[in-house]
């Protein structure tokens, strides 16, 4: 009957032309060329593009990049299965890499180069992913109001003398989830829950959405101490070298400062696995390592590479020797613990 076949006749001429044009153009947007390496990256484009371009210059290998949050990228990889165009997954946070490996989207790699360049605690025990840059999550304090002698470990921030003086980022941050996971690995759940409750009791303000605003609150005098990733501090310091803040390496008398990584793994169904592995090996070499870490004021994963001058000036510290994979294993437990402790 009439009224059921409206779609075409009701929109003659212009609209159908536009629709046809749209369909033609979407057919034209085809898959990447067979020789191009395809990277799914949850690491910021700005922080990988430069190093990718360098690799293309040196070797002629072209690279296609899709950026997104890690969780949807990993789901996409898993769903695409053997038809996936992706060769390499790059992301921040060891917990996320652990999760990707659990889902079976990363393949184990036998590589003497990677084994030699990347320390054991910064890579998957089954060699499915490798840390490429390192960031510490440690204490930051106001140089106006705090003496470094008063600081010690993450646990020490639960002391009542910090009541109303501590600022923290939200427990939604994967970096805090990894930090608490590592505390669980060291101290067990019971002690860790006490630590987290102690932090919450000392908060000066509702938890912040990011590390930068947390540090700005310390500068403004809303609180005196906080816990941040080193490169966020580095960025503020780069913009204002006289900023009245300093990093304190947490837990130097105990098991060492918590470190996390950004890293990568070759995908299980990589169409160009060999080229992907070559690229990964190239990324682990000292030259590329310094450049990669330098892009965002991080530490290189390879001990043979030098960090940027500004980063080196923060001083040597003892990092926690625990394998960062533990952060992934214990992350769900950490999230639950923070929920129980009322850490929002």
């Amino acid at each position, binding site marked *: 009957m009439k009224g059921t076949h409206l779609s075409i006749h009701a929109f003659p001429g212009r609209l159908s032309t536009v629709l046809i044009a*749209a369909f033609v153009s979407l057919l034209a947007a*085809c898959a990447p060329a067979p020789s191009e390496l395809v990277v799914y990256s949850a690491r910021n484009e700005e922080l990988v593009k430069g190093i990718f371009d360098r690799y293309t210059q040196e070797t002629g290998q072209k690279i296609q990049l899709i950026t997104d949050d890690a969780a949807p990228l990993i789901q996409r990889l898993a769903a695409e299965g053997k038809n996936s165009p992706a060769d390499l997954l790059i992301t921040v946070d060891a917990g996320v890499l652990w999760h990707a490996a659990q889902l079976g989207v990363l393949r184990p790699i036998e590589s003497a180069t990677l084994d030699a360049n990347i320390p054991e605690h910064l890579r998957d025990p089954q060699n499915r992913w490798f840390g490429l840059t390192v960031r510490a999550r440690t204490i930051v304090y106001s140089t106006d109001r705090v003496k470094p002698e008063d600081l010690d470990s993450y646990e020490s921030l639960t002391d009542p003398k910090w009541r109303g003086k501590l600022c923290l980022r939200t427990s939604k941050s*994967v970096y805090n989830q990894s930090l608490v996971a590592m505390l669980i690995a060291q101290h067990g759940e019971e002690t860790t829950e006490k630590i987290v409750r102690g932090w919450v009791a000392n908060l000066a303000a509702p938890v912040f959405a990011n590390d930068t605003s947390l540090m700005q609150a310390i500068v403004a005098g809303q609180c005196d101490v906080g816990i941040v990733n080193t490169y966020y501090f580095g960025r503020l310091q780069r913009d204002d070298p006289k900023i009245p803040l300093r990093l304190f390496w947490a837990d130097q008398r105990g098991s060492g400062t918590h470190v996390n990584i950004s890293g990568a793994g070759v995908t299980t169904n990589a169409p160009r696995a060999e080229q992907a592995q070559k690229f990964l090996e190239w990324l682990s070499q000292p030259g590329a390592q310094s450049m990669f870490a330098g892009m965002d004021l991080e530490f290189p994963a390879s001990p043979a590479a030098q960090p940027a001058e500004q980063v080196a000036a923060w001083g040597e510290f003892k990092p926690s020797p625990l394998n960062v994979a533990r952060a992934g294993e214990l992350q769900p437990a950490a999230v639950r613990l923070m929920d129980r402790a009322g850490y929002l």
Partner: protein
Amino acid sequence: MVSPMSGVGAWRGSTLAVVLCLPAVLPLLVIASALISPETEVWAHLAQYVLPDVTINTVKLVIGVALIAGTLGTSLAWLTSMCEFPGRRWLEWALLLPLAIPAYVLAFVAIGFLDYAGPLQTALRSLTGSSAWVPPIRSTGGVIAVLSLAFYPYAYLMARNAFLTQGKRALEVAQTFGYSRSAAVWRVALPMARPWIAGGIALICMETLADFGAVSIFNYNTFTTAIYRAWFGMFSVHAALELSAVLLVFILIALFVDRRSRAGVRYTSARDVSYQTREPLGARTRWLASIYAGSIFMLAFLLPLLQLVWWAIMRASRDLDARYWMFTAHSLVLATSAALIIVAASLVLAYLLRRQPSLFNSTIVRLATLGYAVPGTVLAVGTILPLILLNNALQGLLNDLLGTSAPTLLLQSTLLGVLLAYMARFLAVGFHPVESGLQRVTRSLDEAAIGLGVGGARLVGSVHVPLLRSSLITAAIMVFVDVMKEMPITLITRPFGWDTLAVRVFNMTSNGEWERAALPAVLIVAVGLVPAAMLSRGNSNVA
């Protein structure tokens, strides 16, 4: 012809509904399928420690934003379409502009400016020694205020459309029958505009439920943040889908209640509105109106834009390069094609419901509009899974047919994929205005036209489309601007190399560099201004 459809016609109609709604319904089925095998462990934890708080928070937020944004939008629409006051002519279209500013951008700017470490409180402390009396922006009130300023244009646009097409005449008729002016407003004009106002508020509620960006900048925990916590934090995509499905059920019930409360009511439209004039306000009230409308414009648009432009200028020299032409072109192509496709589909569906309002048809169309309330990333995954399945099936077929010479398909990252995915998210945005508009085209008009031998497609093309013009333009603009701002679906389904302005915003903010995101954000606003201006002109012609 308006008589009951024959069996064949009804069957065809339902087939059309299914085909058009499929891209929007499939992702929701993927999400709902999670309910089949519940993940009890994560649920138990969330139910005990997370859900009680976030449910209360979500209810507070949705009610607060619906009330404030609905009131702002409706009252501003009334003032600009029915009254004359200083500045009315430019405020009328300027009040649409906040539509182009993404809510998370507004949230970021508001907190940056008003929090303890922000310039306002810092200045207060250095002048008076204390800023303790300033109410905290990172609070329930703060997040409600910001979301209301971000979302009121939905109510404004829809209500304005209603008032412009009939408000004045309705008032005059009511006053002829002895109602006082204020009684006429409350008892006649507002009830007559109800489908539009309700449609606008429905969009506002759905936007609020789906919002993740703004609430996470406020660290205000809602149902959405609980969904992300299950997925990103506890690695359970299954629990995240389940929570989303529960959210869908609630929205479905709300929509159903709203429909029921309006059942049996018919709306008709007066089209001869050329004589409509605006009521000049009194000497004092006209300035009050200017101050009210002007300050909403300042808060929701001008001040945040100035902040963005300031940041953009600080960073532009480092960041602005030729790629920005590409980002802008990609955004424009996607937003324009999505607007055309979604409005066309909305028109067909709204018309189908008018002719064949069977339970089956109306259910599937309602379902197809629910995607707007699902948190973006969850819907993005729900959308891409069926696409990938289809792609893998087609690839298998090709491989069987052609062997090793088979080309590689990648449906999930083609323009077709992106556009289908946008259908899932934005069908509601196109459908609500078109449906409200169609409700006021009288059936006697249909019958008259059919009596003159104009039926079927010609009836739509030559009678309805011109009558619906302002509703169609409203729908197209809202879809266009929403697609410009859209992030999660664009990120996961864009073809290789197809970065848009919103993707650029993501690439900056994902690393916490908000100031650097100002440049693409300003461009999104600038490109969004073009359709907003078009819209205002389109509607002025009607008035």
